[in-house]
Structure formats: structure tokens, C-alpha cells
């Protein structure tokens, strides 16, 4: 006991060594991401089942979404993943200035994503395309009437998946703000940077979810518009 009593900055009392603490943090985050994966998994399952049942409804529903906006967001998010990775890199190098810069960039990109998302949602709401009772009231031909019910199913999945994803982005933005604050204070050093790395994992995970959402939601019906 006595040997560990000497205070190492950043080492919690119940860990034996910095190494152990870092390992615990990393594994902890990965396991947390597992739970996140299964959490989204439920919605992916619903997507798979309903797409299987209502293929045409899904094409029509997907057709309602804007591929340019979805594509733009894909670009933004992947870019933010890059900046996050660079942030982690510079935290490993112990370069505080660049760390702060890249974290800030990541944050801004994340916010940009949310802004685009906001306009997409708004457009849906303006057309009463949100599948809640009393609100859902699409125009007769947008989407074509006979698909209304199945498009409604598509749209709730769209809102559930992207909504949950956006929620994760918001949480991510909160984490980034904290990191930036700490980084500016000089908390992170070459030796102690695992909070940055761990938050990076989270951010990339959110990116990965979007990598799947984009084709599943936006591109599914693309060939219908492209073809006709």
C-alpha cells in the first residue's frame, strides 16, 4: 500500500498504476460502445423487418429525403472524424495548441451537422411528414397516396434512428466542450491523455452509425428518382 500512496497526478486511489487505470478506461469505453451498438441494433432490426415487409414503401419514403443534404452531412461527419483523430494524435504528441484547435474544429463540424439536420427535420415538419397521431398529414401525392401507410413506417424509423443519432451528437458536443476546456487548462499531457482518446472512440462510433444510416435511409430510393 505504502508504495502506491505516493501521489501520481490523475491516478485514482483504487488503481495500482497509471497503466491499469488507462486500460480500464479504454476497455470501459469499448464495452460502453457495445451497449450503444445493441441499442441502435434494435432500430436496425426494425428497419430490416419493415424494409422486408414494405419494400416499395421504403423506396418511396427514402425518395422524400434529400441526398445532397444527407451527402453533405456524411462529408461533414467524416471530416469531423478526421479532425478528432488528429486531435488525439496531437494529444499524444503533447501539442496543446493543435489539440485545442482540432477539438474545436470537430465541435464546429458536429454543430454544422446538427444545423443541416435541423433544416431537414423542419422541412419534414412543414409537410406534416412526422408520423405522430394528429400531426401526420401528408399531401395526397407527396408521397403517392397508396404508399402513405408504409411511408409512415419508413419515416418513424427515419426519425427514430436519426433522432437518436442526433442525440448522440449533442452529447458528443458536450463532451468536446469539456475536453476543450480541460485541454486549454493544460490538463492533458503526453503521459495523461486517455480522456481525449476515449472520447475520440465515442465520436468515431457516432460517425460509424451515420455511415450506415446514410445509405439505408437516403440512398435506398435514389435509383427510383435516378431511373425515372
Amino acid at each position: 500500500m505504502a508504495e502506491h500512496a505516493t501521489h501520481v497526478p490523475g491516478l485514482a486511489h483504487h488503481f495500482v498504476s497509471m497503466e491499469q487505470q488507462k486500460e480500464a478506461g479504454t476497455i470501459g469505453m469499448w464495452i460502453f460502445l457495445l451497449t450503444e451498438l445493441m441499442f441502435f441494433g434494435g432500430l436496425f432490426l426494425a428497419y430490416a423487418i419493415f424494409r422486408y415487409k414494405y419494400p416499395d414503401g421504403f423506396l418511396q419514403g427514402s425518395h422524400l429525403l434529400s441526398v445532397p443534404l444527407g451527402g453533405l452531412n456524411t462529408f461533414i461527419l467524416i471530416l469531423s472524424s478526421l479532425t478528432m483523430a488528429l486531435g488525439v494524435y496531437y494529444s499524444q504528441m503533447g501539442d496543446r495548441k493543435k489539440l485545442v484547435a482540432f477539438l474545436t474544429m470537430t465541435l464546429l463540424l458536429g454543430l454544422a451537422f446538427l444545423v443541416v439536420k435541423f433544416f431537414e427535420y423542419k422541412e419534414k415538419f412543414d409537410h406534416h411528414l412526422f408520423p405522430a397521431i394528429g400531426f401526420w398529414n401528408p399531401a395526397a401525392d407527396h408521397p403517392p397516396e397508396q404508399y402513405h401507410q408504409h411511408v409512415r413506417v419508413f419515416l418513424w424509423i427515419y426519425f427514430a434512428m436519426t433522432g437518436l443519432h442526433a442525440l448522440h451528437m449533442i452529447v458528443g458536443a458536450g463532451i468536446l466542450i469539456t475536453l476543450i476546456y480541460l485541454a486549454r487548462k493544460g490538463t492533458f499531457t503526453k503521459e495523461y491523455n486517455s480522456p481525449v482518446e476515449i472520447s475520440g472512440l465515442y465520436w468515431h462510433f457516432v460517425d460509424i452509425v451515420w455511415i450506415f444510416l446514410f445509405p439505408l435511409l437516403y440512398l435506398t430510393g435514389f435509383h427510383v428518382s435516378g431511373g425515372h
Partner: protein
Amino acid sequence: MATEVMETTSTRNYLNNGHTVKSWLLTLDHKRIGLLYLFSISIFFAIGGVYASLIRLELITPEGDLMTAETYNKVFTMHGVMMIFFFLIPSIPAVMGNFLLPIMLGAKDVAFPKLNLLSWYIFILGGSLMLITMINGGIDTGWTFYPPYSSIYSNTQVTLAGVSIFITGFSSILTGLNFMVTIHTMRAPGLTWFRLPLFVWAHYATSLIQILGTPVVAITVLALALERTFQIGIFDPKLGGDPVLFQHMFWFYSHPAVYIMILPSMGVISELIANMTRKRIFGYHFVAFSSLAIAVFGFLVWGHHMFTSSQSMYAGMVFSLITYAVAIPSAIKIFNWTATIYKGSVSYDTPMIYALAFIGLFTVGGMTGLFLAALGLDVHLHDTYFVVAHFHYVMVGGAIIGYLGGIHFWWPKMTGRMYPEVWGRISAAIIFLGFNLTFFPQFVVGYLGMPRRYHAYAPEFQVLHILSSAGASILAVGFIMPVFYFAWSVKFGKKAGNNPWMASGLEWQTSSPPPTENFTYQPVVTHEPYEFEHVEEIKNAGKLENKTA
């Protein structure tokens, strides 16, 4: 020995390290958090037990005379919800797992003590919401929440209950996450995987389920809550939704969840049998890996709850087949435990009585699971009292018996005091008798065709129901007794000493109750688990006895 006892209990321990309410509510000590859980789940168990009593009272007569049908439906729903989500799922992991796991690993605490405390607060938040639900009139959907009844037709507090379960789920996830990381990263020097006590293996397997299963039920009840508020149309066929999808998503979690309940209990039983017979568990590796096998295969069988639900026939066959695959590892455990007793040095103390009861009752409960997993037979048995009897055999006869056995076994470690042994044995015997009288008749009445969740029933079933209700009153006595003698023992019980059972295992090497950081030194493990040659107390006791003799 007596002097030693004096020494250890007078030093600072986790109990006397702060006496204020704040020191408990803000504690990061895994042992205190374990006790917080013990206290909270006991309350939920009592509430669930009151509901159980109401069920049994109503069912004494075939007419629905004690309460209205609506009330009855709320009663069994709240009974199931309380018992499952707020008592049994957290029971052993959150109480004994929290208390013991770090000590068994030779660590000072779990990997994330703050998350651990947070998980208790989340649990309390979820539990309070469920209590509010109850006070607001409760829910009447059954603990399985099947839509479209739950999503549209029920006019009870389903949304609130859904939110409550959603929240509580995170407490379970955090516990699992914490344990898994702790087991991976915080083992004492020399404590290799195959030197771990089987309790730890069982908890590792349990954590796996908590981590991978719970998120799915969380998203499911969330979707249900959304469906109810916005009618988004996920489960409602009128809007293009699919009620059977709910069942898939629900059971994806809720079948593995039954292994969240039984695996820790099996871990406890392994400890009890090894230590009460002073023998290394027969086939240690098999018992260890069977826990993992149950956890993994347990994820592949959920469709056995849906054999009559209009699931496809082939899916039914696959699910049935794999269900039998899960039964095998359970069988392996049962046989290995029995073999462990062979040529042991068997003590007759209460924990061993519970272990023995577990072996018998779980075998019956598990084997009747095989009836249900048999496709053609389940068509008849599904949603009858046979199912009710099956799951009370495994959950009460298995999981709770293991829980009680464990509480008795580790009580001296938790409090530093012994419970009164005689009362322990008496109440164990009462529970055993009352339990069988309560639930065995239900197998019979179930096969005769009595459906579950029935408020009133056909008169020819009455005799069996009366037996069952009579049994329940005996069972209630058996469950209430420990509450009193445990409470008594905290003040008046015999002082326990470090190792009253002369057991092996790291937790018995530290003082009772343990100090805040568990050990005053960094333990180093040099030998296999359950090696009793290393237990000092046994040697000392022998010397003492020889002297007096």
C-alpha cells in the same frame, strides 16, 4: 483466536468509517453501495411479496370476488415487474457482486466507483418512477407488455412504467460494465483466470448479458412509450406496425435476463458447496465455462417464448433445438456440484442447506423448462400455470434460494456478526416446504388447462389453487423470518471473526467487516481456488481442539 477477533473488529472498517447519512449516500465504497442495494431491493421484494399474497388470496375461490378483474390484472403485473426488474435482476449482482467481487479479486474497489454509485441512483430513480406508477394506478399489461394491448388499449400508466424500466436498464448496464472491466483489469498479482472463484466467472457471464441484452430492451420499451404517446406505428398493425416484432425484441433481452437471474445464483452455489464441503469444485473448468456457454447460447433461444405466437414453424424449430443446447451446461453444473459433495467434509450449516435445496429445486424447475421447450407440448402448456410453476421453480427455488444461501454465508463478512444458526435452518426448512406446496400444484393445474393471468377460473381447478395459497402463506412466514433474525443479529449476533466458515477465498483473509480499501496489504495469490490446506483457521482450529480434548 478470541484475541484476534477483538483486534480486527475494533479497527476501522467500512461500516464505522463515517456514520452520517451523507457518508452513505455519497459513498464510493463498493461495499456500502452493495448494502444500499440490499436495502432497496429488500423493499421491492416486500412490495412484490405483498402483491403475491394478494394474487394467492384472490385465487382461493374460483369467482373473482376479492377484487375486480382490473385490479387483479394490475396486481399480477406489478408483482411480476417488481420481482423481476427491481428485485431479482439486481439481487445477487448488485448486492453480493458489488460487495464481494473486488474483494475476491484482491482489488480496492470496482474500476469505476462513481459509475457504481450512479448506477444505484439510477436504480432508485427508476424504482421511484415505478412506485409513482403504482400509486397513480399501476399498469395492467403483464410484465411482458405485449402490444397492441399495451400500446393502445390499456388505459393505465404504461408510458411511465416504460420510462421507468428504460431508466432502470441503465443501472443494470453500468453494473455489468463495471464488473467486466474490473475482472479484466484489476485482478491481484497471481490471480490468473483459472484461479478465479466460480462466483467471479458467473458474474463475468452475467455481465456479458447485462451489457449486450439490456440495451435492446431499453430501446424496445422506449419505442413502446413513443408508440403510446405519438402512435408512431411501430407495433400497431392498423398503422402498418408489427406486434410480433415487439415480442422478438422483448425476448431478445428477457430470455437472457433469466440467466442474469440464475447465473449469479449458480456462482453463489459453487462457493457454498466448495466451502461447506471443503472441496475444490469437481470439474472446475467445466463449471466455469458452462457459465459462459449459458450466457452465449442464452442469446439464441428467445423464440421459445413465441411458439404459438404465429412465429414461423422453422424459426420455432431452430429456437427449440438451441434451447436444449442451453440446458446442457446447466446439467453439467448440477452434476458437478453433486459430485463435489462426494468424499467432502460436509457441514450442515444453513448455507449448505440452501445449496442442497437449490440442487433439488433447480433440477425440477430446469427440467420442466424442457417440457416448455418441446414444441408440440408447449402448444398446450404455453400461458398456463405450468409456465408459472416452471418459472417460480427456477426463480424462487433457484435464484432466490441461492440468494438467501449467499446472504447467510456472507452475512458475517458483511456485518461482522453471525446470524442465529438454528433460526437459519428452521426458516430454510419452512421455505422449502412452503415453496413446494405453493408451486407444485401449479404444474398440475397448468396441464389441466388453467390459463395464467386469470382473475376467475373454472371451479374444478379450485382444490389445487387452495393448496397453492396455503403453501404461499407458509412461504411468506419463511421469507419474513430472516428479516427479523438478520436485524437481530446486527446488534446481538455472535462476533464472527475473519473466517467463521474456515473458508478459502480472498474475502475471508481480510477482517470482518473489511476495511474501506478491503485489505491492509496488497494480496498476492499463489495457489488455486478452494485449496483448504492454505486456510490457517482450519489448522488453528485443529490445534485448539486438540488442546482442549
